[in-house]
């Protein structure tokens, strides 16, 4: 039995439900005991650290302090979301590296009767745990329905292998852990060159056209390699590439239909779990066709509920309408970086 303290993070309850559901299936099969951090709170995501350091670190450290109090046979804190993982790791690292910061954070924690001694937890990402603790051999032994014939683009995103404070990854620019994991499931893994590129992060909220270009690069490259689907390890990557793929298509006049799924969903599938329990059908770009290629029947995504008509009186025309929606801008040729 491999024991871990488990920090789910907010997306696991919302946009990344497929990740949460498939992970619980996979954990059961791999005999992993996940003890959820009691009364956990937001990790601050990608924004808060750039706004105000002390409250942001205090927010994160509250989780660390609670988790450290929960240590029971293991001090390994595992997070499946890349942003959560990085934030927890960062707080632990910088509280030790900058004692003045650590002191201030602990001062804040003391108000809630908490204290965190940096270094008392090992903070791990789910992929790292699966590959380095559970081991590929064990995972391979659990495969009952190899994903033979499914072409996969493994996409790790930027936040897991970098900056890698504890040197857990084989490489920072081109790590092959996820590739290896997909290999043992029997899938055909393409040598995806953008595996650690940016998905756009929260640019999709603040400067969508920047995010669209980043999404286009990733999706078009996977398409170029004729991948059936792209796997990700991060709820934010999944959200950007899945939910904004249509927007990006409209912006560039392209027609990509690249399903974006969590790697645990494919693990669950290979372990013999049915597609619905593995969380398929929750994605927006349907994986139905891709899975049909290997003879798996997957539920189609639920049709989006029709957009509600705005209530009340019409708004005056928006000053920046041109950028607000990609449709008008789609004719413009994008500037070549060179």
């Amino acid at each position, binding site marked *: 039995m491999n024991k871990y303290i488990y920090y789910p993070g907010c997306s696991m309850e919302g946009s990344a439900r497929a990740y949460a559901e498939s992970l619980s299936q996979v954990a059961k099969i791999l005999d992993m005991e996940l003890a959820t951090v009691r009364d956990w709170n937001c990790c601050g995501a990608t924004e808060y650290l750039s706004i105000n350091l002390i409250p942001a670190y205090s927010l994160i450290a509250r989780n660390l302090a609670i988790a450290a109090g929960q240590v029971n046979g293991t001090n390994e804190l595992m997070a499946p979301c890349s942003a959560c993982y990085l934030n927890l790791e960062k707080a632990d690292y910088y509280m030790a590296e900058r004692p003045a910061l650590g002191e201030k954070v602990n001062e804040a924690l003391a108000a809630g009767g908490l204290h965190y001694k940096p270094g008392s937890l090992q903070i791990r990402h789910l992929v790292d745990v699966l590959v380095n603790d559970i081991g590929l051999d064990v995972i391979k032994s659990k495969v009952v329905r190899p994903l033979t014939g499914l072409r996969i683009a493994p996409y790790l995103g930027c936040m897991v292998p970098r900056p890698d404070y504890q040197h857990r990854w084989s490489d920072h620019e081109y790590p092959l852990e996820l590739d290896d994991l997909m290999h043992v499931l029997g899938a055909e893994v393409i040598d995806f060159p*953008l595996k650690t590129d940016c998905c756009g992060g929260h640019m999709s909220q603040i400067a969508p056209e920047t995010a669209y270009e980043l999404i286009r690069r990733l999706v078009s490259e996977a398409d170029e390699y004729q991948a059936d689907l792209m796997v990700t390890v991060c709820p934010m990557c999944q959200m950007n590439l899945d939910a904004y793929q249509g927007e990006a298509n409209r912006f560039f006049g392209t027609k990509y239909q690249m399903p974006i799924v969590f790697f645990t969903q494919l693990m669950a599938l290979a372990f013999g779990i049915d597609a619905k329990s593995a969380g398929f059908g929750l994605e927006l770009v349907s994986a139905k066709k891709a899975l049909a290629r290997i003879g798996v029947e997957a539920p189609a995504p639920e049709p989006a509920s029709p957009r509600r008509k705005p209530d009340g009186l019409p708004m005056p025309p928006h000053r920046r309408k041109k950028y607000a929606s990609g449709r008008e801008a789609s004719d413009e040729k994008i500037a070549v*970086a060179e």
Partner: protein
Amino acid sequence: MIENHKPKIGVYVCHCGSNIAGTVNVDDVRKWAQEKLGPEGVVIARDYKFMCSSLGQELIEKDIKELGLERVVVAACSPHLHEKTFRTAAEKAGLNPYLTELVSIREQVSWVHTDKAIATEKAKSLVSGTVQRIAYNTPLEKQKVPINANTLVVGGGIAGIQAALEIANAGFHVYLVEREPSIGGHMAQFDKTFPTLDCSACILTPRMVEAGTHPNITLMTWSEVTNVSGFVGNFDVRILKKARYVNEDVCTGCGICTEKCPKKVIDTHYEAGLGYRKVVYTPFAQAVPRFPVIDRPNCTFFQKGTCKACEKFCPTNAIDFKQEDEFINITVGNIILATGYDLFDAGRVTNYGYGRLPNVFSSIEFERLSNSAGPTGGEITLRDGKTKPETVGIIHCVGSRDKNFNNYCSSICCMQSLKFAHIVRERTGADVYEFYIDMRTPMKAYDEFYQRVLDEGTLFVRGKVAEVTNAARYPHEKGKLIIHVEDTLVGKQRRIPVDMVILSNGMEPRHDAKQTGQTFGISCSSDGWYIERHPKLDPVSTMTEGIYIAGCATGPKDIPASVAQGAAAAARVLDKILQKEVEMEPIRASVIEENCSGCRICNSMCPFNAIAFIGDLKVSRVNPALCQGCGTCVAACPAGAITGTGFSNEQIFAQIDGLLMTV
């Protein structure tokens, strides 16, 4: 002796210009020594701007003669620098040299401190310690040991070949040991040499042949030094001569065995993985010696017990499958290490895609590709072996000047890259981009070559390449390798699509440099290169007497510098040989036999195997010819029965007393 007579001591404090005087109040130290150390025997204390100058030395000599000084303490720089100078000066005035000691108040005080008051106090303490200690110094005589006139040169690259030839031409015998089947080193793999573009093989092979046939050189290829013991003048060296499975006495080097051998393997060494070789092979056509080697792990006979094609066809019955590794013991007086470098593994810079993207080549691969004796006969092609590239990108500083890998500059890569650019343009007419951080072309005719390559139309982009990728963003990039770089002259990011990328990977110390250093008793810097006795003034000597270093073993170098170092090391060895005997420092350990319990702990501790157990007397005894005076046994002896000249218990305790004296 001490009770009834305190020896007369002279203390001399050096300013070293402002090196010492800038941080230490020299005048104060002198006055203090004169007044406070008077009861300890100090009869005179002086300070001088440069004690090491001839005037400074004369000052000491005069005092010895006129005041009858019996001990001299010089507070100046490190003993490494000037101990010899002052001991010689004292000797000239009739004082035994071992009654003069240096106190390092430069390296250990002024250079490492900023607070003048504290630094002055520390200088006083150190002087006081040595004054107390020197009273117990005894006159010592240097021992003279004859020097064996034979020399061992390790490494048969151009530096080692040069060193061996210089010594052999002077009429002395040289053992040249090389671990590969042929001498020649990296230079044998190159096509052209910068900046003159003369053919590498054409200038190298005459030297190789000369070394191979010289009556004063015993060439031992496919051999490695496994053990070295002894000291300058008399090193005992054990060499592993690996089995060639070819009888060198009868082999004519006709090459029929290689021709008939049915098995081909990828040549990861000489051809850098780009070409193939047979299992019985000579690395290249001009190999010296001409005898082939059987690659045992790949040989069908050794693996399956059948084949023996080479044996069947050999006209002189030279193939000998029963040959075994043998050890050869030799004795030499001096050793030159010219063990060279390893090429940085370009695959470690994962963002450049070497090993993943087929058309990314390493520098040594390109050398083979452009070599007329290489796998493509000198045609520059992509990895498919056919297509000529239309655009080529050359990336500098791969693994060098990069804090993720090596901080140092590999010094040859700029010129090597310029040479590549010239060759590519000459043979294919392709557009060539060079991506550099800084251009470094400092040697003779190097910058002229840079100007020439500029004039030829090679395009230079200043900036460190972020990545080489096959992920096209725009239609014109499809099917190409895209070099993503920040052009720091334009101040913009650029994406430059090319057909072929050449990585100019730098140099690294040999992977086993540390182990080799231990075998020969020399040390490596934190980067892994061997440390010179002095980086500027003694670049081919090491801290171990009789062991010299040359070529890239001490750091990245081009061919002219390696050759110069080979010759320089040879000159140092010849100097030693011609002295016919070497003076040994008389700092030795000795066993007080009545105190020795015969526990033999010291026997195994001694790194020089200088202590033997005398069975009849049941005591250990130190062989003074082998003892290097390191003091390990003195510290290890549980009975306190071993004492070191220069480091006796009285001396050490007196020095501690002196150091702790209130200043």
